[in-house]
């Protein structure tokens, strides 16, 4: 209470570096994933790239523009969709917002009609664009948000968690839409998401950011190779094992009296030898061999 009153007159300031000298390049026509734990700096990066925030220092060039210097010219070449912030007019049909965007972006009539027809057919949203946005489901609204951000044929689109809160079918539709637009129009997408299925379905390359620093910037395939050199073996015992002993050099991920989960580095151990060890020394009910989840490696990176 006293501190609250004190803060009326004097406040302690703490400097937090949201981003720390991050640097990356994205080629035209890419769909790049941009992931990281909460508070890593993903949205701050998107906001700088879209010209909303001014960085304290550093250079940003998007399509040869410095986003915050030439904002009005620059934003004509980009589209932005925030999964958690709506841009459609809530009480009016999305179609009205589309026409308003036509005026703001000065989209010629022919191009507007062509794009509107293309996107409406692609998403099959002809029936919903004339209903007030507040009456639409989250999935329907997100589709309309995406259409709204693409009508002016931007070169690059920033998607900040576009599939958040959506069901599996809606997510699939959004992913297919992004892939199709990327293929047909060569639109570049930078996608932030917590859903790794989005990444797996859409992105060849990903950037992982943590505590304002880029910790990975390469292909998803390379990241998977790191993961696939390991195998996960789940062993279920048919009776209680108190004095379990792991094979030498094998990492135990999880263990109870009735089962054990281990990680095997295929470069150092043969899977069949490890399985034989268990069969020889313990009463086995079930053995399951699987690949580690991509989440596992990413969680490891997040926790560093």
């Amino acid at each position, binding site marked *: 209470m006293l501190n609250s009153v004190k803060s009326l007159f004097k406040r302690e300031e703490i400097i937090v570096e949201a981003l720390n000298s991050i640097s990356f390049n994205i080629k035209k026509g890419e769909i790049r994933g941009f992931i990281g734990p*909460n*508070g890593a700096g*993903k*949205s701050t990066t998107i*906001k700088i790239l*879209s*010209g*909303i*925030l*001014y960085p304290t220092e550093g250079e940003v060039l998007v399509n040869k523009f410095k986003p*915050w210097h030439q*904002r*009005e*010219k620059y*934003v*004509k070449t*980009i589209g*932005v969709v*925030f999964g*958690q*912030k*709506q*841009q459609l*007019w809530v*009480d*009016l049909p999305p179609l*009205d917002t589309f*026409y*308003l965007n036509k*005026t*703001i*972006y*000065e989209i010629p009539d022919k191009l507007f009609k062509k794009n509107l027809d293309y996107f409406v057919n692609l998403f099959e949203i002809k029936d919903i664009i004339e209903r*007030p946005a507040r009456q639409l489901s989250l999935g329907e609204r997100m589709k309309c948000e995406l259409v709204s951000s693409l009508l002016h044929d931007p070169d690059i689109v920033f998607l900040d968690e576009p599939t958040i809160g959506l069901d599996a079918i809606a997510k699939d539709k959004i992913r297919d839409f992004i892939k199709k637009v990327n293929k047909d129009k060569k639109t570049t997408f930078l996608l932030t998401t917590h859903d790794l299925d989005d990444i797996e379905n859409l992105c060849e390359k990903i950037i992982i950011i943590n505590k304002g620093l880029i910790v990975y910037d390469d292909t998803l395939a390379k990241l998977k190779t790191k993961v696939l050199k390991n195998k996960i073996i789940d062993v279920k015992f048919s009776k209680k094992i108190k004095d379990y002993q792991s094979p030498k050099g094998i990492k135990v991920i999880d263990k109870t009296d009735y089962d054990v989960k281990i990680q095997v580095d295929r470069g150092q151990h043969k899977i069949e030898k490890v399985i034989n060890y268990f069969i020889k020394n313990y009463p086995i009910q079930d053995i399951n061999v699987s690949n580690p989840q991509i989440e596992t490696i990413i969680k490891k990176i997040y926790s560093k």
Partner: protein
Amino acid sequence: MKIVKYYMQAIKMVIAREMMYRINFFIRMITLFCFELMGPLITTLIYMSSKGILGWSLYEILLLQAVFMFINSIERMFFQRTDWSLSMYVRSGSLDRFLLYPIDTLTLISANNFTPEQIFTNVLSIILFIYSFIQLNISLTWMMILKFIILFIFALVFIYSMAMLRFSIIIRVVVMNRLGELHRTIKNFALYPINVYGPILSAFFKYILPISILTNYPTAVILNRSLENIQYVILSIIILFILTRLFWKNAIKNYASAGG
């Protein structure tokens, strides 16, 4: 011009949005109508029971109040709702979306928050103006009309500058609930001739915070009164506009957004 086209389109959409909640719109309109009538009614009552303001007849004061009502209704049409909603935009981070369009941010925000029921106040002010004008039996010349239009434009520049100042402060401090009220309270000093407030306040309202441009000077043109030191008032408005524009740009530059 794109801004005009955008405004026309946005205003149509705002009206469509308001018509979705018709009862709310009608009640707001009626309330506003009654509220705006109070000023001229009270003035009339004052003049019926006293000598009123020295040097000003009832219809001269009503003419001044009609000009005030007209300019006030234009300001409220474009900026009143923004006074309330901007704080919410900054707090929630939804100001971001206004920075993503290739159009002046303030234009975008004010068009989104257009208040259509103020059109009726506009009409009321024109009726009051015409009524007072007829009662005063004024001979209008083209020069008077031209001067009035020029001063009216400067009045709009002043209103726009004050809007930029208020909104810049809100973006910087996030929550500033009474700022709009403070502005309206100060502006209400223009409801009466500036000279009634004494030399110091009069000078303040002419050269530092020139609210005198809202009513006194435009009305002085119609009533063929002196436009003493108008050049300093205009200079003050130009300086205010430049400073508030810089302040606004600085506020946008330092906008920190909200939410991930």
